[in-house]
């Protein structure tokens, strides 16, 4: 049996219970609406807010997003599944996106990905058992001048070496 990711990337995981927008998020959505001439244009910002609030976009989250955006559920599902940055299932506390495109590939990114897999014991698309890390191979991060590069949480790290990867892993608690 393959040890590769067992779930296609568009398959969604449900939240364990019902979800609803907290009051603070509702207020934030009202502010988002003031920026656009219509509610539909607020779809991406509302989905980003949903990721912040709920961790990933489950079918339940799609439903409450559709509700607040006043759009049919299928349109929201189409958007959620089109964009790779909207997680469809829980990620690790630290999400590592390692670039595989041309400049990083030339700078040995494939070998560093192997190193990550060995250090964390997971493949791209998986989460470590302790929930600390998830790993994803991504296309160009536009950090080619510092290849090989990755994005972890909200920052970029470049000129990666095994030592630097060790440091990134040990510093991410």
């Amino acid at each position, binding site marked *: 049996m*393959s040890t*590769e*990711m067992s*779930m*296609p*990337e*568009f398959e969604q995981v449900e939240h364990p219970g019902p979800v609803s927008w907290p009051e603070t998020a509702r207020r934030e959505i009202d502010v988002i609406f003031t*920026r*656009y*001439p*219509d509610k*539909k*244009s*607020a*779809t*991406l*910002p509302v*989905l*980003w807010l949903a990721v912040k609030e709920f961790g990933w976009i489950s079918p339940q989250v799609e439903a409450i997003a559709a509700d607040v*955006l006043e*759009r049919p559920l299928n*349109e929201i599902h*189409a*958007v959620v599944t*089109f*964009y*790779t*940055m*909207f997680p469809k299932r829980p990620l690790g506390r630290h999400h590592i*996106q390692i670039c*595989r*495109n*041309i*400049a990083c*590939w*030339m700078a*040995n*990114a*494939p*070998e560093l*990905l192997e190193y990550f897999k060995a250090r964390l014991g997971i493949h*791209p*698309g998986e989460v470590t058992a302790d929930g600390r890390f998830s790993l994803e*191979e*991504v*296309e*160009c*991060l*536009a*950090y*080619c*001048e*510092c*290849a090989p590069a990755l*994005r972890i949480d*909200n*920052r*970029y790290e470049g000129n990666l070496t095994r030592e630097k990867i060790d440091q990134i892993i040990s510093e991410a608690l």
Partner: protein
Amino acid sequence: MKLVTRNIGKENSHTLAVAQADGAYSRVAAAIARTPDDIVQEVIKSNLRGLGGAGFPAGRKWSFLPKGSPKPRYLVVNGDEGEPGTVKDKYIMIHDPHLLIEGIIITCWAIQCHKAFIYIRGEYDLPIQRVESAIAEAKGAGILGERVMGHDFALDIVVHRGAGAYICGEETALLESLEGKRGWPRLKPPFPAVEGYQRCPTVVNNIETLSYVPFVIEMGAQAFADLGSERNGGLRMYSVSGRVKKPGVYELPMGTPLRQIIYEHAGGIAGDRKLKAVIPGGSSSPILTPDEIDVPMDFDSLAKIGSMLGSAGIIVFDETVSIPEALLVLSRFYAHESCGQCTPCREGTAWMEKIIHRIIAGDGSAGDADNLVRIARNIIGNTICPLGDAAAMPVISYVTKFRGEFEEWIKRGRPISAREAPITHIGEKMPGRSAVAV
């Protein structure tokens, strides 16, 4: 000489106080004192080209907005930097966001628009944060708002975060995305100038393009045009990556010879190895061989030799890089990023990836090089947006210019000469995609 990169490296260059001490917003008053049409004409004369990749003259794009339409107009700023090898816009957003805002203000005055959106790729956390705080600072200082710097002109700027889709860098896909939909490109015409965001007249310009606008006003069109080459005005930011000693972003005149950029500015080839090939303008541009690198880096000169300046993302291959493997990396990318709307692109990119994959895996068959070129030719010109061409052009140029290398792989599998180079993960199944038969 430096223009848009001149503040990079200065401490706190992203803050309003430092930016203003360096001249930020000093060109707004001069622009607003002139008529909008006058500014459009000035930018046309400056030969400022669209630096996102297409190279369309910026001023002419602005002049296409219909006159007398009752609909609101929009400026949409393309910061969805995603073309592999291209890293420039992020420097402006991180280090000089106020220069960008100044360029937006002047442009909005020229096209008489009161709302601008800056679409920034979702991965760009720091650029988004810097641009958002610069907008907040500018609003607080009365630079943006109901009366821009005290003038009778209102302008609001909104940052819109993308969510991971290369295709959204294409202007009509970007507009769809901004409207809250999947990034599916639209058939043109109508062009965005006539029907863009919300079917209203819209100008879409790249971050770098707009950041040069204040300098056109400051220097005058002629002086700006004279910095570059014929019909390619000013300077531009060249991103250099791959096997060079000093990868980075270099702001140089339009028309700077590629050889000079690689050997003087980027320090030459890493390890003093031999140059094998160069991608001159982002991954979509046809590859150049070492005998072609005296080409001046401007839109027209590269078009003349069958390539393109595109986003000026220069990617350098030394003698140890395997061309078929490099093409697999790029073909996998285009197959992943095809939006799926047009059959030639959706199916063609997937097939090209599969065929290159099997060649790399040692299962190539005699006709595979021809198959690749044939599939690529069937994509070009047959799709709604340029992604199909972008995927096909590298395939044709790599296979044509390095045919021997492909034939060698097809005949004998991985050649000895490629063993020192990093190997792509052959046989590894990608999540969520059909398994490739290798």
